[in-house]
């Protein structure tokens, strides 16, 4: 059941990512047409309307993407009914906060919770805790995946909650480093494991 849930979350991610991509293409096409029809159109109110419309089109899909990512995080820590309960609790907390304090803070709750869970997941992965659940086997791919997702969550936290703050760019660089390092660890896990195992002392086997 959990395997299917993972697959459904991945399929949802693919559909949402592709859909946002298609919206961006439409946006560029519209922008092109307007730049032909209206001179210096970026200085006109039409451009502001275009930005608002794009926000309106992208926002629901971004919310789904953030929700899916937020829901992907607890699956490392929990399984079975506990996972469903954790997901339900996160979703309820998000919706309740969104209803009471606005969608931005609602997303913030989900992202901050996801950040905290992901930090715990990274700690447990580093400690070699076998209770964690990953689709892939091997230390480097697991820690890479965890660091990469933490980077993306922090990136979203930065843009949703900290965009006007003086810490915005510092947090941005932190997320960039985490994303870059996470990708290298994730994509080159087998090579890194070979490198590690070629020198003393030998550690656990790394599977691709």
């Amino acid at each position, binding site marked *: 059941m959990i395997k299917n849930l993972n*697959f459904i979350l*991945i399929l949802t*991610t*693919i559909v949402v*990512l*592709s859909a*946002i*991509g*298609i919206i*961006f*293409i439409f*946006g*560029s096409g519209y*922008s*092109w047409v307007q*730049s032909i029809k209206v001179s210096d159109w*970026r200085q006109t109110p039409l*451009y502001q309307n*275009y*930005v608002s419309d*794009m926000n309106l089109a992208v926002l629901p899909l971004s919310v789904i993407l953030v929700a899916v990512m937020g829901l992907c995080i607890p699956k490392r820590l929990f399984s079975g009914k506990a996972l469903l309960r954790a997901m339900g609790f996160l979703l309820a907390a998000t919706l309740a906060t969104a209803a009471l304090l606005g969608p931005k803070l609602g997303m913030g709750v989900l992202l901050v919770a996801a950040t905290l869970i992901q930090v715990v997941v990274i700690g447990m992965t580093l400690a070699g805790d076998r209770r964690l659940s990953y*689709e892939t086997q091997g230390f480097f791919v697991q820690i890479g995946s965890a660091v990469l997702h933490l980077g993306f969550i922090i990136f979203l936290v930065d843009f949703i909650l900290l965009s006007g703050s003086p810490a915005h*760019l510092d947090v*941005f660089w932190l*997320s*960039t480093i985490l*994303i*870059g390092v996470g*990708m*290298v660890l994730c*994509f*080159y896990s087998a090579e890194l494991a070979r490198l590690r195992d070629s020198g003393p002392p030998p550690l656990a086997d790394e599977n691709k």
Partner: protein
Amino acid sequence: MGNTAYLSAREFTARVGQPLIDLILLLSIAILVFAVLPQLRTYTRFVVLALFAAFAAGWLLLVSFHYQIATHLVLVDPTGQLPPGSFTIPVWVENEKFYFWTLILGLLTVVGRRRPKAFQSTLELTFAGFGILTFFTSNPFSRPLADFHAGFTQYVQAVSTGQDMQVQVQAYYAMYGKMVGFYNSAYMWIHPPLLFAAYSTFVLAFIGCIFMLVKKQERYDKLAYDWAKPGFILLTVGLLIGYPWAVEAWKDQPWWYDPKVNVTLMMWLLYSAYFHARLYIHRRGMWVTTAILGYVAFLGVVVTYITTYVIPGIHSVAG
């Protein structure tokens, strides 16, 4: 000011570069011809190496021209308030961009080992196609650094002909702004080359995806994946590094949802979708989905590149 030395270096680059780009066209056509003539096919490898050597030689010529600019040209403030400045222009601006992309693609074409023959042949043909496109659309030797040259010439004319001080100051600040925010910007040395390197690896990933559907063999999926991986890392880091630059350079102008920004994000999202799909490639329907996402994502690369020249916007040279 060293303007004479600059002009002579520019003239030299055009004079030596033109026969090189002609050679690039000839070698590119030769690769295409050799592909349809079985008796000549064995020589293709040598022609591909020669084509890469011609590209590399041309690039060294451009490097030398940029070095001459850095050492000879000085931008002097007519009011004397700001210290004199020089231009350290990276070798991937204006019509050098596609040349640089093709150069990296050429490198990836000639250094590869133990690739399936069909894949390598397709890659060599693609490299030749890029060579022909370079000749017809992005010849960096016909008018070396045309925009930079136009701007600097305007400044030199304003200063040397003793025009009104206000005109001199305007011409100076027009060039000074570009020097600080664009030509000499540290971001300029990191953001574009990472993206062009990514685009080059995506060409190989795209060819792998084509063979995934044609041959339906795992080795082509692995090839596509192996080349999409470094591309995605370079693309992601390159795009992220572009963000602080955008904030710094376009702070007073609206740039969010700019056409180039849109299509670049689209490209990233599609590659991200490709990687997610590949996690379940052995599930029913996911092999084809992954390959098609690989195609569409590469189409995103092409659209992103073309957008710069076609759709007007803050990140474009069109309009």
